[in-house]
């Protein structure tokens, strides 16, 4: 029984600045970025006001859905956040869904999700400063009483940590559980069918069964976590404006 659970492999090294190590995560992210760029290019070509093509209708539907989601959560005045939220949603969903094709999902690496969560953290603080001024931002830490300042600072710092760990943990747990199931199914089919000459060497039980798990771990969790990450970003940013 060989169960292979490991972190992202280092694929190659760029020999500048003391060697930048390029891991599987980064290469897979490049692939996903290329795929998203191609899809956007394909959907965004030849836009017309009269007689729109089916492609254009799909693109319009997607844009309207994301805009409605953003305005529904953050209000009409924040409609300009829709492009960022839409990008984040697409990138996160595609990254997690890439595990369906056998790639190692980039979101199963804490670096990716922590990067996104830090962007959200900076946005929250920048929005607070923009709407309340530097004085109001600093005063917000001493709310409601001065004694609470350490607690407020911890809760601010906990936001990116909890967001990144949530996304990373869900995807990585799916990866680990799927590998464990594959390993145990191989062992099971070896134990049950091992006495048949040719058939015994093929892990027959691995066919079909993991697909049902994949529906939950790959499809459902991926889409849900992408949605939740965007939702939390929107909620935090719109709370920071008050």
């Amino acid at each position, binding site marked *: 029984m060989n169960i292979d*659970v*490991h*972190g992202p492999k280092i694929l190659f090294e760029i020999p500048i600045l003391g060697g930048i190590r390029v891991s599987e995560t980064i290469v897979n992210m490049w692939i996903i970025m290329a795929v998203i760029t191609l899809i956007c290019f394909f959907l965004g070509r030849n836009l017309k006001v009269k007689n729109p093509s089916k492609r254009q209708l799909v693109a319009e539907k997607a844009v309207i859905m994301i805009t409605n989601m953003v305005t529904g959560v953050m209000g009409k005045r924040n409609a300009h956040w829709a492009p960022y939220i839409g990008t984040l949603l697409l990138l996160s969903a595609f990254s997690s869904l890439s595990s369906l094709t056998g790639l190692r999902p980039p979101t199963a690496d804490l670096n990716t999700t922590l990067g996104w969560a830090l962007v959200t953290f900076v946005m929250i603080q920048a929005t607070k400063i923009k709407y309340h001024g530097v004085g109001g931002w600093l005063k917000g830490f001493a709310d409601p009483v001065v004694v609470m300042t350490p607690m407020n600072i911890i809760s601010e710092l906990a936001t990116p940590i*909890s967001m990144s*760990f*949530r996304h*990373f*943990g*869900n995807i*990585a*747990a799916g990866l*680990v559980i799927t590998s464990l199931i594959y390993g145990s199914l191989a062992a099971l089919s070896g134990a049950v069918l091992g006495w048949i000459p040719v058939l015994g060497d093929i892990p027959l039980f691995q066919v079909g069964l993991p697909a049902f798990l994949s529906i939950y771990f790959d499809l459902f969790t991926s889409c*849900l*976590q992408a*949605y*939740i990450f965007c*939702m*939390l970003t929107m*909620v935090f940013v719109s709370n920071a404006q008050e």
Partner: protein
Amino acid sequence: MELTRAIVLAAEAVGAGLAMIAGIGPGVGQGFAAGKAAEAVGRQPEAKGDVTTTMLLGCAVAESTGIYSLIIALLLLFMHPFASALN
């Protein structure tokens, strides 16, 4: 030295299992949230979309503690922080 290492590895495995006891909390919490959501949909079927969205968001936030314990368990299982500190 071999024995020490074996004991530390075993303790890491047991610790990973113990860490996952924290999975009880999110399970109970999410079950409670889902039950309340089912009640709300039963009372107001037309608000199903909003209720589901709110429930999923709440479930995701309630899940955090479970995810933290999962991270600890994964660290213990695959990173071996204590066994590598021995060498």
